């Protein structure tokens, strides 16, 4: 099941990564080679096997629903590419 350039364009869009047009075809070939190699998994009989979703068999711990952190506006903003008046400055999203 090879990936073509159109699929790369679609997936790159989903992943929000700009890929120049001339990179789509080489990427399609690279990704197809990797996926072809991955397809050997089809040989494994996994009927009735429960998918593994956690590396450890431990229940997720619960805690009290209380505030444990906060009041760190300046620390949160300290790495912002752009900020003003205590807010992140982002491109306009509403026309």
């Amino acid at each position, binding site marked *: 099941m090879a990936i073509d350039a159109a*699929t790369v364009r679609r997936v790159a869009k989903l*992943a*929000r990564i700009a890929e120049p047009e001339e990179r789509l075809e080489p990427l399609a070939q690279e990704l197809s080679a*990797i996926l072809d190699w991955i397809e050997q*998994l089809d040989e494994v009989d996994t009927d009735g096997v429960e998918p593994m979703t956690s590396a450890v068999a431990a229940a997720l711990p619960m805690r009290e629903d209380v505030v444990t952190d906060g009041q760190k506006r300046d620390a949160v903003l300290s*790495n912002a*590419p752009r900020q003003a008046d205590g807010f992140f400055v982002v491109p306009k999203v509403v026309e």
Partner: protein
Amino acid sequence: MAELTELTLKAALDGLAAKDFSAEELARAHLEAIEAANPQLNAFVLTTPEAALEGARRSDARRARGEAGPLEGAALGVKDLFATEGVRTTAASRILGDFKPPYESTVTANLWRDGAVMLGKLNLDEFAMGSSNETSAFGPVVNPWKGRGSNQALTPGGSSGGSAAAVAADLCLGATATDTGGSIRQPAAFTGTVGIKPTYGRCSRFGIVAFASSLDQAGPIAKTVEDAALLLRSMAGHDPKDSTSLPVETPDFAAAVQRSVKGLRIGVPEEYRLDGMAPEIAAMWDQGIAWLKDAGCEIRSVRLPHTRYALPAYYIVAPAEASSNLARYDGMRFGYRGEGRSLSEVYEATRGEGFGAEVKRRILIGAYVLSAGYYDAYYLKAQKVRRRIVQDFETAFQEVDALLTPTAPSAAFGLGERVADPIAMYLNDVFTVTTNLAGLPGLSLPAALDAQGLPLGLQVIGRALDEETVFAVAGALEKAAGFRAKPERWWA
């Protein structure tokens, strides 16, 4: 007395306790070694000399007050994947720019709590995605080891190549590292150092830049098995800030190194004997088996039939998790921001320009295998195969107490030799990736030199939360191997 930088961590701690030298002298010796070596080795991406010397002086003061911690005065390096408060943390990616975390990772905080001193941040593959350190935005680390009579620059392995190279070249007494598919153990094998990936959940992931959350684990790279045990004891421990951190006591790993291995049952997995395995790797493995037999272990052949499917399963699970984890790099709140006319264009420019080629490749694979219509065929299938791999280990560990394997299928290879072929690069992790999928502890230690004079590593794999047996077996192997070789200091 040997140079201070040539000491093991244990010897340095003993020397500090005996007041043979101060933490400040120890830090200064390492900073000078880094300054001389780093232009050639590129192991550190940032050094923090003032903070290191000031921290060392505070350490000396604590010792003078009788408040010395278990790692008091130890001069360490930190893989640049651990958030260090106020100190630039990049994951070796352009996209993090000059990110200065306003918080400290739990693992490094634990080391400072125990008295250790940070020398600087260590190079790695970008976002820990790579096996040769060549995907770093800072350029590759160069392995301190060279083939006999050769001047070719070799990879130190990856992703923790900076950590491994710095320890091998005596630029620090030990280093933090992380391992998602082999990123501690393969570089340790390539540089003649010791590295352990503990059981998943042993070390907190809080403050470690996330790659694949169900696989990532922190661990040390060190000069000896005992040094690795001392470092891991400080790094590990339950942390409420990581919900997958296990609420268990941390044992005295260094005591376990001295334990007798007499009567232990050691499994040798037949499936790891790959067709066309390098004869020197096979010979080293056989030698390791003989050493353990001599030490009184019982050797048993075991089957792990799904081994060959571990890497393909990993290359679905890890990229899928990475594509989700790396969605946070959108250029809005921290790091690099690209230019564009709309929000979408800014996102795409930020990520297109900020991520390197291998990271983008993995994000695209991850996004693809998670996308509508392919989820069941790829992601769900991989999670089922992952369960099969775990079941293989469960069956084997009913009969044996630990497993012995080679760490990597080859010695260190030349920089540039494998970059063009992603799958050839991925195959470096064929012996290590299984334990990440199963969450088990795995340790690599140097066992022999190949014909070119390059180090080769043996791997010991244990049951979940049984690092003590792993350390005991590694201690016995280290004693038998008597590996003392060091790279020639061509860089200084």
